[in-house]
C-alpha cells in the first residue's frame, strides 16, 4: 500500500482550505495535481537551462536538447516502447488522436471503409473520426455497452470485418471506469487487417502500461492527467508506422530540405513535431514519470482498486444513489460516476463544493454515453495516489446534505 500521507506532503495544493474546509480533490480524471518535484523541475529549467532545442550549438541549447530528448526515452521506458523515436510529443491526447486521423487516416481510408469505436468514447476519440469520415467517405461503426457498463465484446466481434480499417477504443472509460480488454480487441482487429488505436488518457496514469503486450498500433495519452504539466501529450506508434505516415503540421524542426515548391522531412519523431515544442513542460513531465516510477505503477493500481471499492460501497450507502459502470473494483479504475436521485449533478456539485469537495458534474465529454445511460449528466468522483478514505467520507457527508436540501423541497412542495 502507498504511504499516502507522505505522498500528500509532496503536493502543495492539497494543503489549502476551500470554503472553510480542507480541500478534497476528487477530480483527477479531469486533471491531476502536481508534486513539488514537477514544479521544481519547471523552475529549475527556466532558471538554469532554458533555450530552444535541436539546432543550437551553445551550452544552454545543448542542455535543453539533452533533457528534452531524455524525457522521450523515459516515456518510451514507462510504456514499454522499444524506441524513443516511436514517441511523439503533442499537446494532449486529443491532438495525438487528431494527428493519427489526419496523418494516417487521410492517406489510408476510402469511401465505405469502417472505423470501429464504442459508445463510451470520449469526444476526443469521436470527433476526429467524424471529421475524417466526412473528408474520406469512411463510415463510423459504434459498439454498445452492456447493462453492467462493459464493452459489448460480442457485438464488437460481429462488427469487425473486412471493411474495418481501424478500431479505436478507450482503455479505461473516464465515466464508467471500465477497463476494456484492449489486448483481445487488438487480436480481433489485427485478424481482420485493421489497426488499433488505444485512448490511454485514463489508463496511462493509473495502470502499468506495456504497449507491446497490449498489441496496439497507436497509444495516446496526456501528461496533465498523470502528475505532469498541462500542454504535453504523447502519441506512441508501433515501430515503422510513423515512418510510413505523411507529416501533420508543417513548419520548423520537421523538415530536412526545403525548396520553394516541395520539401523533404526530418526523421521520425521530429517529422511530427513542427515548431518550437513545449520544451519546459516535456522536461517537467520527466519528473512526473520519475515520481510515478518511484511509487511503482502496480502500487498505484493497487491503491486505487482498494479506494474505488471503498468509494463505491460508501456511495451506495446513500439511498437511491446509482453508481454507473462496473461495481467490481477489479474490473474498473477509480473514476466513479453516480446519480443522486432527485438532485441534478450541477446542484450536487455546487453543494459538495461548499464542503470543500471537488468533484465534476456534467457529460464528461461523453454525450453519446450519457444518452445511452439515459441521464442528462452524472456526478463523478475520480481518485489518485493522494486520496484517502476519509475524503470519500467527506464526499458522502456532503451528498447527504444535498439530498436533505432537495428532500426538503420535496416535503414542502408536497404540502402545497
Amino acid at each position, binding site marked *: 500500500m502507498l504511504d499516502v500521507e507522505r505522498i500528500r506532503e509532496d503536493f502543495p495544493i492539497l494543503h489549502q482550505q476551500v470554503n472553510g474546509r480542507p480541500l478534497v480533490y476528487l477530480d483527477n480524471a479531469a486533471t491531476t495535481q502536481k508534486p513539488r518535484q514537477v514544479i521544481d523541475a519547471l523552475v529549475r529549467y527556466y532558471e538554469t537551462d532554458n533555450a530552444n532545442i535541436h539546432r543550437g550549438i551553445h551550452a544552454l541549447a545543448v542542455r535543453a536538447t539533452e533533457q528534452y530528448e531524455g524525457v522521450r526515452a523515459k516515456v518510451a521506458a514507462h510504456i514499454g516502447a522499444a524506441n524513443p523515436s516511436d514517441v511523439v510529443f503533442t499537446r494532449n491526447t486529443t491532438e495525438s488522436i487528431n494527428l493519427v486521423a489526419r496523418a494516417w487516416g487521410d492517406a489510408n481510408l476510402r469511401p465505405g471503409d469502417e472505423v470501429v469505436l464504442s459508445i463510451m468514447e470520449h469526444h476526443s476519440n469521436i470527433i476526429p473520426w467524424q471529421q475524417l469520415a466526412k473528408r474520406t467517405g469512411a463510415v463510423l461503426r459504434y459498439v454498445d455497452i452492456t447493462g453492467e457498463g462493459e464493452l459489448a465484446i460480442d457485438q464488437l466481434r460481429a462488427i469487425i470485418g473486412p471493411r474495418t480499417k481501424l478500431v479505436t477504443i478507450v482503455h479505461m472509460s473516464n465515466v464508467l471506469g471500465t477497463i476494456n480488454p484492449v489486448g483481445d480487441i487488438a487480436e480481433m482487429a489485427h485478424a481482420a487487417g485493421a489497426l488499433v488505436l488505444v485512448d490511454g488518457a485514463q489508463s496511462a496514469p493509473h495502470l502499468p502500461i506495456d504497449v507491446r503486450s497490449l498489441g496496439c498500433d497507436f497509444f495516446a495519452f496526456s501528461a496533465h492527467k498523470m502528475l505532469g504539466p498541462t500542454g504535453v501529450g504523447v502519441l506512441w506508434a508501433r515501430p515503422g508506422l510513423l515512418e510510413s505516415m505523411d507529416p501533420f503540421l508543417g513548419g520548423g524542426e520537421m523538415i530536412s530540405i526545403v525548396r520553394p515548391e516541395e520539401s523533404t522531412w526530418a526523421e521520425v519523431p521530429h517529422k511530427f513535431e513542427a515548431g518550437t515544442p513545449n520544451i519546459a513542460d516535456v522536461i517537467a513531465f520527466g519528473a512526473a514519470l520519475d515520481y510515478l516510477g518511484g511509487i511503482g505503477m502496480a502500487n498505484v493500481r493497487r491503491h486505487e482498486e482498494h479506494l474505488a471499492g471503498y468509494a463505491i460501497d460508501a456511495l451506495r450507502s446513500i439511498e437511491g444513489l446509482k453508481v454507473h459502470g462496473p461495481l467490481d473494483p477489479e474490473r474498473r479504475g477509480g473514476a466513479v460516476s453516480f446519480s443522486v436521485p432527485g438532485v441534478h449533478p450541477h446542484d450536487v456539485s455546487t453543494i459538495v463544493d461548499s464542503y470543500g469537495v471537488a468533484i465534476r458534474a456534467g*457529460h464528461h465529454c461523453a454525450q453519446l454515453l450519457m444518452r445511452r445511460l439515459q441521464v442528462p449528466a452524472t456526478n463523478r468522483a475520480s481518485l489518485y495516489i493522494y486520496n484517502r478514505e476519509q475524503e470519500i467520507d467527506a464526499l458522502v457527508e456532503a451528498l447527504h446534505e444535498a439530498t436533505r436540501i432537495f428532500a*426538503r*423541497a420535496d416535503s*414542502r412542495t408536497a404540502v402545497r
Partner: protein
Amino acid sequence: MPIPEPQFDDLYRELLLDHMRHPRNRGALENPTHRLDGVNPVCGDEVHIEVAVGDSEVRDIAFSGLGCSISQSSASMLTENVKGKKLQDIARLRDHFQAMLVDGADPAPDLGDLEAFQGVARFPVRVKCAMLPWKVLDEVIEGAAPAPQGDRQ
C-alpha cells in the same frame, strides 16, 4: 473554532425549489410564433421555449428542458413573469435580472419574485444556468423572424 455549516438557503430559495418541483407553463403551445432552443455549453443544460407574440406582446408561452434546478426553475419563473407583458417591458426585466446576477446590483423593483435568484450571484458558474432561459428569449425580444411552419425536427 467550529467550521460553519455552508448555508444554501440563499442559493436554493424555497420558491426556486418549488418551481423546480412544480414547473409552471411546462409543455408546448398550439400556435407559437417562435420556437427557441438554448444549450448552456458549459454544462449541457437545455431550455426550449415556445412563444406566441402579437402586438409586441407575449400572448402565451411554454417551456420544456432538461437541467439543473437553477436553469429549470429560472425558465419556469420566466414564463410566469413575461406572459401578457410587452416586449419592451420584458427587455427591461431581462436587463434588471442580468444586472442583479452578473453585476451584483440590488434587485430592481420590477423584478418581483425573480429576486429569488439573487443568491445565485455568489456562484459565478451557476449564473449562466439562471440566465439561460433569458438568453433563449433574447431572439424574440430583439425581434427575430417567426418560427418556421412544420414540426421542430
